[in-house]
Each structure stands twice: as structure tokens, then as C-alpha cells.
């Protein structure tokens, strides 16, 4: 009898191990897989303004843009008026949509494979993934997701160790300091870039 139960446990363990990886990964990995599938479909189908609009929708659906914008402004966020914050976030979404739609260019057979998922005690989920290309080395992309009530949403993307939010934060911070410590010139610059 003890032998049989041990066998049952073993069977159970094998069954758990054999389960498909994405089923055990939970909602965070599902978000990444869904978003990347949508992006690939979009890049295949559309170019130019249509693609930019599609990327914007994806950004607003899967990314927590207010959170990212607040992180990118860092300590300057507190000193920014609510109306300015809205304009800033709007401009950032436009700038990122533009950047992503141009960055991808032609679809070249890239695929995104989701790897390890780590959930942290502070509510952050880190999803490792690899972007495989037809030519060249695969690119390591790490996604950071937080759940603020509407399911997990992306709050940072780390490409080969370079965090998008951290780089923007450094960039914006330096620009603000170079313009008398005011956020307004930065917002105007971002709006100007989004307009043309």
C-alpha cells in the first residue's frame, strides 16, 4: 500500500511536470503571448499610419501607460499639474506608438517565445522571453507586469538588459534639468514630435 501511494504521487508529479508550460504560467504570460501575437499580425497586415494606430491600441490595452509615464518622469511627476500630466501621457503614448511602428519595419519572421515567469511578493511578475530572428542571435526581452485591478498589464520592457522606462527616465530627467527644471518644455518637445 505505501508503495502504491508513492507511485500515485510519482504519477501526479510526472503529470504536473508534463503540463504545458503556458498553462502553469498564469495570466501574465498569457498577456505577453496575446500582445505579441497581435503585434505580429498587425505588422504583417498594415504599414504607416494604420500600423501606428494599431500599435497605439495595443499599447493602451496591454501596457499600463500612466504607470510607465509616472516612472519615466520620476521625481518630477509630483511637481507636474494634472492637466500637464494628461498632456504628457498622451504625448508619450504617441511617441511610443510612432517609435514601435517604425522600429518593426518589415516583418522578418521573428517569433517570441515566453520562458520563465517569476512572481514577486510585491505584486510584480517578471516574464522572460526570447525574440528569435531568422538571421542573427535571439534577443532577450524581459517583461515586467503589475496588476492594478484590471488584470496584469505591462509596466516595463527590458531588451538585452536595457529597461525602456529607465532609459526614458534618464533621458527625460536630463532634458528637464537642461531646461530650467521645468516639465513644460519636455511636453512641448514630445507634442511637437508626435505632430509631424
Amino acid at each position, binding site marked *: 500500500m505505501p508503495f502504491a501511494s508513492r507511485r500515485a504521487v510519482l504519477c501526479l508529479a510526472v503529470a504536473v511536470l508534463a503540463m504545458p508550460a503556458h498553462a502553469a504560467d498564469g495570466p501574465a504570460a498569457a498577456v505577453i503571448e496575446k500582445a505579441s501575437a497581435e503585434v505580429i499580425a498587425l505588422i504583417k497586415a498594415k504599414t504607416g499610419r494604420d500600423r501606428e494606430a494599431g500599435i497605439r491600441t495595443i499599447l493602451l490595452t496591454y501596457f499600463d501607460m500612466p504607470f510607465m509615464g509616472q516612472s519615466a518622469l520620476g521625481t518630477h511627476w509630483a511637481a507636474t499639474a494634472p492637466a500637464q500630466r494628461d498632456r504628457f501621457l498622451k504625448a508619450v503614448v504617441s511617441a511610443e506608438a510612432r517609435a514601435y511602428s517604425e522600429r518593426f519595419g518589415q516583418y522578418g519572421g521573428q517569433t517570441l517565445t515566453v520562458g520563465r515567469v517569476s512572481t514577486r511578493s510585491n505584486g510584480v511578475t517578471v516574464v522572460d522571453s526570447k525574440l528569435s530572428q531568422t538571421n542573427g542571435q535571439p534577443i532577450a526581452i524581459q517583461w515586467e507586469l503589475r496588476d492594478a485591478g484590471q488584470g496584469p498589464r505591462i509596466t516595463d520592457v527590458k531588451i538585452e538588459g536595457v529597461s525602456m522606462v529607465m532609459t526614458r527616465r*534618464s533621458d527625460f530627467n536630463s532634458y528637464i534639468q537642461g531646461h530650467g527644471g521645468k516639465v513644460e518644455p519636455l511636453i512641448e518637445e514630445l507634442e511637437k514630435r508626435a505632430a509631424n
Partner: protein
Amino acid sequence: MAEGFLKTMAAGARRSTVAVLAAAALLGGCATGDTGANEPWDPLETPNRFIFSINRAVDIIAIRPIAVLYRDWMPARAQRGIHNVLDNLGEPVTAINEVVQGDPSRAATTMARFLVNSTIGLAGIFDVATSFGLTHTKEGAGNTVGYYASVEPENGGFYMVLPLAGPSNARDAAGLMADYAVDPFRILTFALNVDWLLYSGPRWGATVVDVRTRTLFALDDLEKNSVDYYAALRSAYTQQRAEIIRQKREKTDPRSELQRRDNLALVR
């Protein structure tokens, strides 16, 4: 009156000493609990920006156009071959660093790669070692210092922009010099008085074109999408170097990166 003044002075001095000590304790606290959320340390920002602008001018008129031509017109297999030769020339330095990092078996693999590729791979043109299962690694003294230094890998000393070589910091610039000093090829060609046109010139020229070609996409993207390219590149460089060093350390401590991320979320 005078006594009162002296007393006030003394009290003021005591207060400022306490303030300085408190500030030092806070700074010290920041240093040990450094989560990488801080800006890179850049006390030489003005001269750095000056060199950065010269580098950029040289890049725009000379290096970038060559890199674009090279990418678009040089056959992909030739590009691959040249990259392999340069990688192969770097293997001895990598092996030396791996020994210093306390990983002699990895160093042996690197030397095996070097021997295989230098012979069967025709002076390194073909990377046959990888198909034998000998994977490629690249190490420099900057990584070695970062591996042993008991500070956050984001902290590589002060940031600096090197003429032509671009973004660096105290750690990596010192590393470059150390690597140059111990490079067996460099020592050999110096000892044999090899003309620079035969070895150093072609090697460094090819390295510049190869590296610039490989960074075209990322740097164009960073420049186009930043409002302060200098600051964006400074941040990206610091993060990427830190990631490489952190991965080395994580062989012994796989949770440290995630723990740092937890702290980062708190800092925000």
C-alpha cells in the same frame, strides 16, 4: 556678547557636523542599498558632452556611412567571416580574463576554440568550434573588475566618453587598457616590430566597422526616440554593462536580479 557669539558658532558647528554625518550616513545608505534607480555618476559631464559631440560629428561624416555601406554591400558571409576573425583574435584575452575570474575550465574551452578555429577554421574565418559544441564567450577586464567589485554593477565609477570608442566608465576604460596590455597578439607584434599597417591598423579598423555595423539599428533608434541622446545613451550603456556583469554574478546568486527589481519598485 563675544562669548554668546562663540557659543552660537559652536552650536552651529555642532549642528552642521551632525547634518554632515547624517547626510554621509544617508549617502552611505544609498551606496549600499543602491538599486540602480539612480542616474549614472557623471561628474565629467561637460567634457564628456564635448567629446560626445566630436565623436558624433566624426560618426556622421565618416564612420556611420562606412558602416551603412558595409552592411548593405558587403556579402553577409564575408561580414560573418570578418566578425569571426576578430572574435578569434580576442579569444586569448577572454581566456586570460576567465582564468582571473576563477573559471579555468571555461578558459580551457575558450583556448580550445582558439586552437580549433585558428587551424581548421582558417585563421578564424569559420567558427567551426561552435559546431563542435564549444560555445563562444567574450570577456574583458571590465567584466572581471565588475565581477569582483562588491558594488552594484551599475556603479562602474564615473561615466566617461572616450574619443572614438564612445561610452565607457572608469571600470571599463581601465579594463580596456588592461586587456590591451595583456593581449598576447599585441605583445607579440610589439616584440617582433610588426608594421602597424600589417596588424594593428587592419584589426582596429575592422573592429570599428564591425562594431558600428552591429550597433546601427539600436543607436539610430535610441537617437531618434530620445530628447537627450547623450543621457539616453549613458543610461542604456550603464544598464547593458550592468546586465552582463550581473549575469556573471548570478551564476552563484540567481535571485539577486529579481530582488533588485523589488527594491526598484519601492524606490519609485
